[in-house]
């Protein structure tokens, strides 16, 4: 073989068998002469490639390149192949090495640092200029009501449970739904209320005493013209019963009939005078002005309900504030809850956007939010016995699916900023309260070592 440049030499290394290496000589600065039929140890191949790569990186520095070649030759147990000695390179010992040593260094040595490089974590801070309105539900004796205690919603200055940003003055509250007629309930829910379904007052009592409800939502669904069409005057008697039966704040709902609801809520506002109940709900497609007036005249709170649309929510809130002259401390919003798997992503993002807008200073959206979390039971995964889909894996017992569907729906929306949950399953209420209390810093406890799962048997 004739003369070649280092570049060609490296090309050759890549192309040819490594045997050509033995007896490499070099002439002048960058010319290497290779003897045909030379042989070298196969095991050095990998290392040589590493060297080749490195040398290529430093190709501009011929001296260094030669230094590497000197190393190569040492490793191969060959005499230095260079016709010239590379200047300014630390002298490499040229002692021929036994083949055994060759094998040892064949694996690239990984250089490990002795010490950790110390670094400091500086958490990025987020501050919002706005604050969510505080809304008081219920009134005690000193404020002209008969409630044992009030529930305060809102007051956040940062995202939910971001206690490391700012303290959260009020953790979310949970209301349990009570109906003035037997509603269609999933079996897993119904079995907890079987004994009280006929009597809303007993139902409310059980929800508070046994299941820990912070509030009661009484739905006067029998007023629906498509159902019993109970007259408003008569329907609100149940409200009086419930106010007698429990001491927690009350939320009153109609049937959702847009002609009838304003009248029902008006009557409810009258009979609950002084109790600071919440009227559920004012919507854009019903007489919101009439409902707002009822709340104003009797000192109640109004729930502003829109269908998953931040702009509509803003519009309705502005109507209530500007046109109906409702005070900001008397408004709660329901931007609509969709169940896990049935639009929860829309509900979550809509609420999260509303909350962030409020925190950023949009006072038209800076109100506490309420969620009809019971909607989770509309998901077939919550109530259906088996999957209707042929190739689905087994869905398991529905008694265990339903509550977790309600929990996960609620938990997700709590992370979007919901302050008030309307729920039904007592187990779901307990678990959601537990996780929110924990994130809110109210529940202590620990495990011995959180890393034990790494080793646990079984």
């Amino acid at each position, binding site marked *: 073989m004739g003369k070649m440049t280092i570049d060609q030499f490296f090309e050759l290394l890549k192309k040819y068998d490594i045997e050509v290496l033995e007896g490499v000589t070099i002439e002048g600065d960058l010319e290497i002469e290779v003897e045909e039929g030379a042989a070298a140890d196969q095991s050095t191949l990998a290392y040589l490639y590493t060297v080749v790569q490195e040398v290529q990186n430093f190709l501009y520095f011929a001296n260094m390149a030669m230094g590497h070649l000197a190393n190569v030759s040492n490793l191969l147990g060959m005499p230095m192949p260079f016709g010239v000695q590379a200047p300014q390179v630390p002298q490499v010992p040229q002692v021929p090495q036994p083949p055994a040593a060759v094998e040892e260094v064949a694996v690239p040595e990984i250089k490990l640092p002795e010490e950790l490089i110390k670094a400091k974590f500086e958490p990025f801070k987020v501050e919002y200029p706005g604050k969510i309105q505080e809304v008081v539900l219920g009134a005690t004796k000193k404020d002209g009501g008969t409630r044992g205690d009030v529930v305060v919603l809102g007051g956040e200055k940062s995202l939910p449970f971001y206690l490391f940003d700012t303290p959260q003055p009020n953790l979310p509250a949970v209301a349990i739904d009570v109906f003035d007629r037997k509603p269609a309930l999933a079996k897993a829910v119904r079995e907890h209320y079987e004994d009280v379904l006929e009597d809303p007052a007993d139902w409310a009592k059980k929800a508070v005493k046994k299941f820990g409800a912070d509030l009661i939502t009484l739905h006067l669904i029998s007023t629906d013209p498509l159902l019993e069409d109970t007259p408003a005057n008569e329907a609100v008697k149940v409200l009086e019963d419930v106010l007698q039966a429990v001491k927690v704040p009350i939320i009153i709902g109609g049937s959702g009939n847009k002609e009838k609801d304003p009248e029902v809520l008006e009557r409810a506002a009258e009979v609950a005078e002084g109790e600071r109940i919440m009227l559920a709900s004012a919507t854009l497609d019903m007489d919101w002005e009439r409902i707002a007036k009822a709340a104003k005249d009797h000192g109640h709170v109004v729930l502003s309900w829109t269908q998953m649309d931040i702009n509509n929510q803003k519009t309705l809130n502005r109507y209530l504030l500007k046109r109906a002259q409702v005070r900001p401390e008397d408004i709660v919003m329901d931007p609509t809850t969709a169940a896990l798997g049935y639009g929860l992503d829309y509900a979550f993002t809509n609420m999260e956007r509303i909350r962030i807008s409020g925190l950023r200073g949009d006072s038209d959206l800076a109100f506490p939010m309420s969620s009809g979390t019971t909607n989770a039971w509309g998901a077939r995964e919550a109530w259906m016995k088996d999957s209707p889909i042929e190739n689905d894996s087994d869905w398991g017992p529905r008694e265990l699916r339903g509550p977790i569907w309600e929990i996960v729906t609620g938990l997700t929306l709590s992370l979007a900023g919901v302050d008030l949950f309307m729920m039904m399953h007592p187990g779901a209420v307990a678990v959601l309260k537990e996780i929110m209390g924990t994130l809110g810093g109210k529940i202590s406890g620990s495990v011995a070592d959180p890393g034990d*799962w790494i080793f646990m048997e079984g």
Partner: protein
Amino acid sequence: MKVKSPLEVYKFLPQTNCGECGFDTCMSFAAHIIDRSVKPENCPPLIKDAEKDPKIKKKLDQLIELTSPEVAEVVVGKGDMAIKIGGEDVIHRHEMTYFNPTAFFYDVWDTMSDKELEERCSKVIEFKKFYVGKFLTLDGFAVRCTSNDPETYRSVVKKVAGYGKPMILVSLNPDCMRAALEEVSEEKPLIYAATESNWRDFLKLALEFKVPVTLRAKDLDLLKSLAVTFKNAGVEEIVLDPVTEPLGEGLKGTYERVINLRRTAIQGEDKDIAFPIMVTPIAAWLMEGDEVEKGYWETVLGSLFVVKYADVMIFRSLEPYSLLPLVTLRFNIYTDPRTPVQVEPGLRPIADPDEDSPVFITTNFALTYYTVESDLTSANIKSWLLVLNTEGLGVEVSVAGGQFTAGKVKELMEETKIEGKVKHKILVIPGLAARLQGAIEDETGWTVKVGPMDSGRIKGWLETNWPPK
């Protein structure tokens, strides 16, 4: 990603509209870089020129840096089964979208009997849940070393690798980890975990076997120090585990650590910790309680951190009450909010309808469709449901926007041959589409009845309106 507009990307491209990338113009390619469906490396001329010209190489590197995700993307596993974690760009999904769904790994351990191991692995492999037109599945195995014996671990890891799914190898013992890696490093498992005490050994393993590595530390200064040290030593694929504490103040602290890590990576632009985050809901199994309580709490922890920034998780419970909500929530949170989810247009028979059953129509916006469909199914209403292609928009919006028109209704009715399936000629339209009543009657010749605003009220509506007088 540091750039927001295709124009900013365009100026880095050759601007020749050569089409080699598969798009007609460089501007179109630039737009796809912005929506992250392609990368700068997918421009062949740019790559070719960069090899020759150091100036262009510099430009390319700059573009790659400007367009790479804020949080590093790490790949676990190989081939078709490989799964990407991290790669996120935003704090809130409405700011763009979340990209790589949280990967769910399920634990097995090396002191299980062969039979138990097979049963558990099969369950993970076989699980599927139908949702919005596809089956949701689980991602892989976290193989824990409970024997503390390298050879036992090696053989079990090898067995589990046979299932072909991505793996996390869980052992703090470097000898056990080495044995497993000698067997399966080619499968590119994620190793778990380097800690304050074993980090040198694990650094060596990560470099030697070229596998992604999890760094585990509760103290975020320490976690960052580990990350900086590993990165500096040449490890690129890093996952951070800020330690999951399952309850009480510990859980509150975990929430804080996870949020601070992600927020500091994206908003604080701290590249040293801009890596995928690992959360281990399996820690719920350290609590007191029965299986259901633990499984429930594990699901609660999983849900919490699916919403808040976990990129990869290790779980225990394979019960349906854990799996169904978790895979559904993950799908919901990681759905791209910029494109409405759609279903196939067409005709759906509900509850075995006949020629006297009512005919309803709704849109192909997935949320609307599934609401109507489940309202009809739940109430066991025998009916025919026409699904109109409104380009994924809901009823109100599509009526206003012209995607829900009498002409399109007519086309759909012809395509689905609904006329041959029923004796009557009555179509029930959504209450929110009431204004189209006359137009659809004129177009189709059918009688059009306006149904309720909410499909939940269809049952009550039918009581007075069906059968028609």
